[in-house]
């Protein structure tokens, strides 16, 4: 019973992080029809920024804010400078481009920050609560993880559903030409989309790093899990990304706990293939593929 509870709670917490990362991928996919594989090293770099700030003696929260801010900037600059030229071109170009960024940012981080494992602080406790003679595997940091992701998601919902800016972003994502004809500065909306996505990605980077070890490759498996979660929910569906993340987090946690942690990536692959073969649009898709 204890293990079941522990596994579930760990899975829930982890699932929230995957949900956030999946959300970042979905935001970018919806606006530019690109899967940003480079989101992982981008988040990794902003986490290193936080580490540098903390090493310089400032508090965790300043580092936290620095990471989120650098995420915004990094996302905006990447879209404007690197990605803009391939939008609308054959999709293979964008895929290779983001992979190139993946490799480049990895190496850059290793050169600038070094490859050795660094420990990252956590602002809240990392031990579970005691309830009677059971230890509930929900740590202070775990609660913070869940709450912060939920807050960010609510803020995004408010932005998209209730503001003019959100309306313009949704229009740009749906059909760039129509949006332009209605006066929407589509280019700026795309940049903003990437900036927000990178912000969310940075958040997941910080949450994974908290109380754990950081090194240039530490976010790599997260991009795979985030991608699987996003596909599970449907690449076009932000809500789906969240639910996909939770489902995946809990499933993988059970695989890790009851089968073996080495097979977690394989389990994610199996989930991905199952979704793509049975319901390619994800659990929450509307569109059906055109068949000849």
């Amino acid at each position, binding site marked *: 019973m204890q293990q079941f509870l522990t596994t579930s709670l760990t899975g829930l917490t982890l699932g929230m992080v995957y949900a956030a990362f999946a959300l970042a991928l979905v935001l970018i996919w919806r606006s530019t029809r690109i899967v940003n594989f480079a989101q992982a090293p981008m988040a990794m770099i902003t986490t290193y920024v936080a580490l540098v700030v903390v090493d310089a003696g400032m508090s965790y929260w300043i580092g936290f804010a620095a990471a989120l801010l650098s995420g915004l900037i990094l996302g905006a600059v990447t879209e404007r400078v690197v990605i803009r030229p391939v939008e609308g071109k054959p999709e*293979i170009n964008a895929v290779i481009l983001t992979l190139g960024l993946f490799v480049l940012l*990895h190496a850059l981080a290793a050169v600038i920050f070094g490859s050795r494992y660094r420990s990252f602080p956590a602002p809240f406790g990392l031990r579970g609560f005691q309830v009677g003679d059971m230890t509930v595997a929900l740590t202070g940091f775990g609660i913070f993880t869940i709450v912060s992701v939920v807050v960010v998601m609510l803020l995004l919902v408010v932005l998209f559903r209730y503001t003019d800016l959100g309306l313009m972003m949704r229009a740009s994502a749906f059909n760039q*030409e129509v949006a332009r004809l209605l006066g929407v500065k589509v280019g700026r909306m795309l940049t903003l989309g990437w900036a927000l996505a990178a912000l969310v990605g940075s958040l997941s980077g910080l949450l994974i790093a908290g109380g754990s070890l950081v090194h240039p490759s530490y976010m790599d498996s997260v991009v795979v899990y985030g991608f699987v979660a996003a596909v599970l929910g449907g690449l076009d569906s932000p809500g789906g990304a969240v639910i996909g993340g939770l489902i995946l987090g809990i499933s993988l946690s059970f695989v890790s706990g009851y089968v073996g942690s080495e097979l977690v990536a394989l389990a994610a692959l199996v989930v991905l293939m199952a979704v793509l073969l049975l319901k390619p649009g994800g659990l929450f898709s509307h569109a059906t593929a055109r068949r000849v």
Partner: protein
Amino acid sequence: MGTASIASRLGQVRSKLGTSPPLMHLALALAGLVMVIVVLESTSQFRNGQFAAMAYLGIAAGGLTMLTGLNGQLSLGHGALMAIGAYTAALLLPDADAGTPVVLVLLAAILVTTVIGGLIGVAAARLHGPYIAGATLALAVAVPGIALYFGETLGGEQGLTVSLPEIPGWFADVVYFVSAHDVTGSKYVAYIGWLSLIVTYVLLANLSRSRVGRKWRAVRDDEVSAEIAGINLARTRVVAFVVSAACAGLAGAVMAIAVRITAPSGFTLTLSLSLLTAVVLGGLGSLGGALIGAALLTFLPQLVTGLGHDAGLSDLQAAELAPLVYGLTLVLVILLAPAGIVGSLRTWQARRVPSKPTSEQQLGVQSGGKK
């Protein structure tokens, strides 16, 4: 014979060969073989080892460039497929007494990878673009974990050692006859690699020019038209994937023999992405480009690391310069020369002969922006 008649004779030969691609490929292969012999016999053991690496990277890159360039399927999992070939070879060559003939080892690796590649190919056949990239990415991340999970048979973290296959007597004799040197282990491996590469490339080149190759391109360019023309999309894609997987498996086996060890750490995501870099740089669909890419992957790191040291970077930092260059190159190639090195050369050549595009083509290109 005067030079004029020699030239006209050569011209005749070339035009004779030019009419038959397989013959031309064979001629290139023979020329390549001669060059390989010359180079391997005249360079050091260390260089031989490097050339062996270039060979197995070239084989994998060749298969990948066929898959991505001709058939349009992107794969980030070819490092994992190499791992499968490598582990097969390792299991067949566990110690010096094994005595398994090298050809058998290579064929076994190809067979195993073909079967597994078939399974993956069936799953991947319905995917495109970012989906297949993500799926093969997941594969690349998942396979090392499998090797760790089955630690007893597959050696776990440390991996399995691979013994060198016995050098056949006749081979040693031939080498001595040609160069008056004894054949070393490294040289033998280099020959294995390069002979495999030449055979593979001839087969791939012939495939590319054949009906099968045309089918692959048709599926890449326009699915709907291809299907209307009666081509089975899924089957074509699976065949393409299997062929490239077989190449990766062969490459992995050669790598196992060359490096003498197979461990999960040798097949990281970096390997798959490096293969992609080689293929993009050389130009998707070009075997010559794949070879150039493999050469860069083999010889560039040393060069770049050296430069890094000179610039004052630490050892660890300098080691990261090679991946930095790969990443930067991928980004720049896509932004500046999407057709890769070979493709850009071809376009540049073609541009010197002006041709009028059809109005339909132009309209299709220019009316972009419609969603």
